[in-house]
C-alpha cells in the first residue's frame, strides 16, 4: 500500500508546485522540487540490500475492482534498478535545472509540474505488474514528454518536435496495448508475473506472434529504434535538463525495460530473438553512422543515444537466446543480459553528463553549433574534463565504465554466432562485424563531440555571448555523474552484485534461482582475447578516421533528403492532414440546411430500418373510430391550410395558412373530446398569429430565391420520406397495441387519490406536477431570453447614437 503510494508522491507534490511558485518568488522553485526525488532515492535505496538477496516486494491498490484493474507495485531487481535511476538521475537533473532555468524568465511552475508528472509516470511504468496500469503509465510518460519537449511552446520547432514524438510514441503505445490485450486473452490474467508462470502454455497460441510483434512495436517506438528513431533528434528542442533526463537516461529506456521484462515470456520465440537483436544492431549502426552528420551538439548526442539504445536492445536479444541453450549459465555468452543492464547503467551516467555539458555550452556561449565551437578547453576546463570523461567512456576506453560494458558487448556478439541455432552460424557472422563497425563510428563521434568543441581554434566572434566557465552549481550534477563513470570502472563487481545481477535474474528467471547464482565476474583485463584486439582495432581505425574526418564528412551530403524517414514522416502527416481536411470539407459545408438534411435522413434511415427489421409494418382497421362528414371537411381545411404555407408567395398568406392550420387543430381537439386542449390551442394560436404578424412587420419579404436544383430535389425527397415515415409510425402504433394503456390507472385513482374529476387537469397539476413546474420554468427562460435579446439591441443602438 505504502509502496504504491511512493509512485504517486511526485504527482501529489506537483499539485503544490504552482502555489510555491506563485507565493515564494525569491527562492528558485527547483529547490523545493529537489526534495521529492531526493527523498525517493533514500526510500528506494533502503530496498537495495534485500532485493540484492533476491527478495521481491509487492503491494497492491485496487483502482477499478469491477474490471479487475489495480495499481500493483512490484519491486524486483529490474524494477528497483530503474526506480533508482529515475529518482537518482532525477535529483541531479532537478539540481542542474535550478541553474539552467532562470527563475525570473522561465515558467518554472509548468516545467516542474510536467517533470514531476513524468517522474510518477515513469516509476509507474517500471513498477506496474498489471498490464493495463502499465499501459496507463506508459502513455502518461508520452504525454509528459510531449509537454516537456513543447515547453518553449512559442518556438515552431518545439511544437513540431513535441507533436512528432507524441505521434510516434503514442502510436506505438496503442500497438502495445493491443499486444497486452492479446496477452491477457491468451493467459486469462493481467498480471505479468502470472503470465510468466504460465508462459510455456502460451507459445502454441495462434495470437502469440501477434502479441509479440505488437508489443515490440511499442518498445521500439519508445526506445527510438530503427526506423522509429526519427522523433528523438527532434525532441532535442526540449530544455537540456529534459533531454538529459527523459531522452537519454529514463524514458527512452522504457522500451528496453519492456523488452527485458517480457523476455521470460517471449524468449522462446525465434522471431523475438531475431527482431530484438537485428533491429538493435541495425539501430546501433545507423545511429552511430549518422551521428557524424550532425552539427548540433545535442543532435550528435541524440543520434548517439539512438545508437546506444540499439546496442542495449541487441544485447537483450542475445540474452533471450540463453533460453534455447542447454547450460547457458556456464557459457561465455551468458554475458549478454548482464552486459545489457550494465551498459544501461553506464550509459545513464556518461550520456547524462554529456547532455548536461552540451547544455552548459549552450548556456555559456549561446550556440550549440559544432562548426562555430572550438578552443573552449582553456576557458572551460572543468566542463572539458567532464566532457572528456563522458566521451572516452562512450568511445569504450579505459579507465572508464564504458570500456567494461563495451568489451562485454563484443564478447557477447562474438559468442552469438557460435551457436547453431536459428541460423546464427550463417547470418550470425554479421553480428560481430556490424558491432565492430558501429563501435568505430561510436569512437569517432565521441571524439568529434569533445575535440571539436574544446580543442581546435577559438573563434570568439562566432559566439553570441562571451564564453566563460559555468557556475559551480551547474557543474555539480555532471561532475557527480562523471565521478560515477570512473568509480564504476574500479568497482564493477560491487555494482554487478548489487544492481545488475538482481535485474538479470528478473530477465532470465529460467537460468537462475537467485541473483547470487549468477557466475559473472567483471574484470578489465581478460588476457589477449579477440575482444581486446577488436578494441585496439577500433581505437587505431577510429583515430585515423577522426583525423581524416574533414575530408570525408562531405560524403553525408550525398544522401538524398527525399529518401530519409523524416521525409516519409512529413509526407505521411501532410497527406493525412490534407486528406482528412478534404473529407471533412465534403460534408462540413457550414450550411445549416445541409446538416438538417443529414439529420432528417439519419432519422428516417434509423426509424424505417427499425420498423423493417422488427417487421412492424401493419395496418388494421380494427378499433378505429368511425368517420364523420364534418371531420372530412376539417381535414380538407387542414390540408389546404398546410398547402398554403408551402406555396404562399407572400408572408401574410403563409402566416394566415399557419393560423388556419392551428385553429383547425383546435377544432380537431374539440371533436376528439379534448376540450382543455382545444381551449389552450385557441388561446395560444391567437397569440402566436399576433406575434407572427408583429415579426412580419420587421422581417423582409419572402423572395423567390435561386435554389440549386439538386438541393431542391434532395429537399423534396427528404420531406416526403419523413412524411411517409410518420404515417407508417402512426399506422403501426394504431394497428398493434403491444402493451396495455397505463391510462387505466389514472382513471381509477383520480378521485380516490387526487380528489378531482377532470383527469387531464389532475394529471398536470398533481401526478405530473413537476413536469408542469418545469414547463413554466422553460417558458420563463424563453421570456427572459426574449427580453434580453430586445434589450441588447436597445443598448447597442443607444451606444451607436452616442458615438455619433
Amino acid at each position, binding site marked *: 500500500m505504502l509502496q504504491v503510494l511512493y509512485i504517486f508522491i511526485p504527482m501529489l507534490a506537483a499539485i503544490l508546485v504552482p502555489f510555491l511558485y506563485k507565493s515564494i518568488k525569491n527562492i528558485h522553485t527547483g529547490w523545493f522540487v529537489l526534495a521529492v526525488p531526493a527523498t525517493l532515492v533514500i526510500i528506494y535505496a533502503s530496498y537495495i540490500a534485500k532485493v540484492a538477496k533476491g527478495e521481491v516486494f509487492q503491494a497492491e491498490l485496487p483502482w477499478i475492482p469491477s474490471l479487475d484493474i489495480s495499481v500493483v507495485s512490484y519491486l524486483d531487481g529490474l524494477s528497483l534498478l530503474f526506480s533508482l535511476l529515475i529518482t537518482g538521475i532525477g535529483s541531479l537533473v532537478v539540481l542542474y535545472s535550478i541553474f539552467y532555468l532562470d527563475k525570473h524568465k522561465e515558467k518554472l511552475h509548468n516545467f516542474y509540474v510536467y517533470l514531476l508528472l513524468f517522474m510518477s509516470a515513469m516509476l509507474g511504468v517500471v513498477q506496474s505488474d498489471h498490464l493495463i496500469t502499465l499501459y496507463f503509465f506508459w502513455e502518461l510518460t508520452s504525454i509528459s514528454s510531449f509537454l516537456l519537449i513543447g515547453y518553449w511552446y512559442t518556438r515552431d520547432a518545439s511544437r513540431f518536435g513535441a507533436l512528432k514524438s507524441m505521434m510516434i510514441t503514442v502510436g506505438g503505445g496503442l500497438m502495445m496495448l493491443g499486444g497486452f490485450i492479446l496477452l491477457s486473452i491468451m493467459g486469462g490474467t493481467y498480471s505479468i508475473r502470472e503470465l510468466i508462470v504460465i508462459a510455456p502454455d502460451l507459445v502454441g497460441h495462434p495470437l502469440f506472434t501477434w502479441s509479440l510483434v505488437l508489443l515490440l512495436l511499442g518498445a521500439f517506438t519508445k526506445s527510438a529504434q530503427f526506423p522509429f528513431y526519427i522523433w528523438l533528434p527532434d525532441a532535442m528542442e526540449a530544455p537540456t535538463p529534459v533531454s538529459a533526463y527523459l531522452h537519454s537516461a529514463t524514458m527512452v529506456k522504457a522500451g528496453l525495460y519492456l523488452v527485458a521484462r517480457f523476455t521470460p515470456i517471449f524468449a522462446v520465440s525465434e522471431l523475438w530473438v531475431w527482431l530484438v537483436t537485428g533491429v538493435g544492431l541495425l539501430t546501433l549502426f545507423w545511429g552511430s553512422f549518422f551521428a557524424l552528420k550532425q552539427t548540433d551538439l545535442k543532435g550528435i548526442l541524440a543520434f548517439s543515444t539512438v545508437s546506444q539504445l540499439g546496442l542495449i536492445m541487441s544485447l537483450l536479444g542475445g540474452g533471450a537466446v540463453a533460453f534455447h541453450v542447454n547450460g547457458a549459465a556456464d557459457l561465455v555468452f551468458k554475458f549478454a543480459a548482464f552486459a545489457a543492464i550494465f551498459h544501461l547503467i553506464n550509459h545513464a551516467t556518461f550520456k547524462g553528463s554529456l547532455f548536461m555539458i552540451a547544455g552548459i555550452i549552450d548556456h555559456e556561449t549561446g550556440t550549440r553549433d559544432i562548426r562555430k565551437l572550438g578552443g573552449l578547453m582553456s576557458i572551460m576546463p572543468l566542463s572539458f574534463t567532464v566532457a572528456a570523461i563522458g566521451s572516452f567512456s562512450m568511445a569504450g576506453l579505459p579507465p572508464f565504465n564504458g570500456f567494461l560494458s563495451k568489451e562485454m558487448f563484443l564478447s557477447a556478439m562474438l559468442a552469438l554466432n557460435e551457436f547453431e541455432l536459428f541460423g546464427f552460424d550463417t547470418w550470425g557472422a554479421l553480428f560481430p562485424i556490424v558491432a565492430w563497425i558501429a563501435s568505430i563510428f561510436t569512437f569517432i563521434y565521441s571524439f568529434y563531440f569533445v575535440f571539436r568543441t574544446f580543442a581546435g581554434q577559438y573563434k570568439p566572434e562566432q559566439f553570441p555571448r562571451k564564453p566563460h566557465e559555468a557556475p559551480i552549481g551547474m557543474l555539480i550534477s555532471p561532475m557527480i555523474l562523471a565521478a560515477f563513470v570512473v568509480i564504476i570502472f574500479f568497482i564493477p563487481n560491487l555494482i554487478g552484485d548489487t544492481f545488475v545481477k538482481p535485474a538479470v535474474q528478473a530477465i532470465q528467471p529460467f537460468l537462475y534461482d537467485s541473483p547470487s547464482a549468477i557466475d559473472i565476474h567483471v574484470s578489465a583485463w581478460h588476457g589477449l582475447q579477440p575482444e581486446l584486439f577488436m578494441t585496439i582495432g577500433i581505437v587505431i581505425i577510429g583515430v585515423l578516421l577522426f583525423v581524416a574526418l574533414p575530408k570525408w564528412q562531405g560524403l553525408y551530403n550525398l544522401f538524398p533528403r527525399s529518401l530519409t524517414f523524416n521525409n516519409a514522416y512529413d509526407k505521411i502527416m501532410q497527406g493525412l492532414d490534407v486528406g482528412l481536411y478534404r473529407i471533412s470539407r465534403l460534408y462540413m459545408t457550414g450550411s445549416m440546411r445541409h446538416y438538417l438534411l443529414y439529420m432528417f435522413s439519419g432519422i428516417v434511415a434509423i426509424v424505417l430500418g427499425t420498423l423493417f427489421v422488427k417487421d412492424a409494418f401493419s395496418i388494421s382497421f380494427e378499433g378505429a373510430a368511425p368517420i364523420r362528414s364534418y371531420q372530412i371537411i376539417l381535414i380538407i381545411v387542414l390540408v389546404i391550410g398546410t398547402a398554403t404555407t408551402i406555396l404562399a408567395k407572400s408572408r401574410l398568406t403563409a402566416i394566415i395558412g399557419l393560423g388556419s392550420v392551428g385553429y383547425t387543430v383546435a377544432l380537431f381537439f374539440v371533436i376528439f373530446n379534448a376540450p382543455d386542449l382545444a381551449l389552450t390551442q385557441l388561446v395560444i394560436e391567437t397569440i402566436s398569429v399576433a406575434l407572427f404578424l408583429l415579426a412580419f412587420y420587421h422581417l423582409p419579404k419572402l423572395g423567390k430565391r435561386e435554389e440549386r436544383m439538386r438541393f431542391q430535389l434532395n429537399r423534396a425527397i427528404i420531406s416526403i420520406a419523413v412524411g411517409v415515415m410518420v404515417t407508417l409510425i*402512426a399506422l403501426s402504433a394504431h394497428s398493434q397495441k403491444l402493451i396495455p394503456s397505463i391510462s387505466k390507472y389514472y382513471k381509477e385513482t383520480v378521485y380516490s387519490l387526487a380528489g378531482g374529476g377532470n383527469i387531464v387537469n389532475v394529471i398536470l397539476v398533481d401526478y405530473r406536477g413537476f413536469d408542469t413546474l418545469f414547463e413554466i420554468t422553460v417558458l420563463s427562460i424563453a421570456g427572459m431570453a426574449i427580453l434580453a435579446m430586445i434589450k441588447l439591441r436597445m443598448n447597442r443602438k443607444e451606444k451607436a447614437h452616442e458615438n455619433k
Partner: protein
Amino acid sequence: MEIIMAFVIGFLFMAAVYLILSKSLLRIIIGTGLLSHGAHLLILTMGGLGGEAPPVLTEGAKTFADPLPQALILTAIVISFGVTAFFLVLAYRSYQELETDDISLMRGSDEDE
C-alpha cells in the same frame, strides 16, 4: 378515422420538413409551427380517437377519451409556443444585426474557414 389521420399527419410533417429546409427564416419558423401541430395530432391519434366523452368523471360514466395523451399535448402546446416566440425574436434580432434572413449566408465568420 385513425387511418385517415395518419395520412394527414404525414402530410403535415412533410410540409413542415420541406419548410424547415428552406432558406428564409420566416418559412423555417412556420415549418416548426407545423411540426408541432403534426406532433400533437400524432400523439392524440396514437392514443386512439375513440371515446364518447371528454375525460372528466361524471355521473353515469361512459367510455371517454384517453386522458394521458391529452395531458402530454397540453404541456407540448405551451412549450412549442415558447419556442416559436423565441425563434421569432431570434429571427428578428438576427435580421437586425446581419441584415439578411437567408440562413445560407449565415455561416459564421470567415476566420472559421
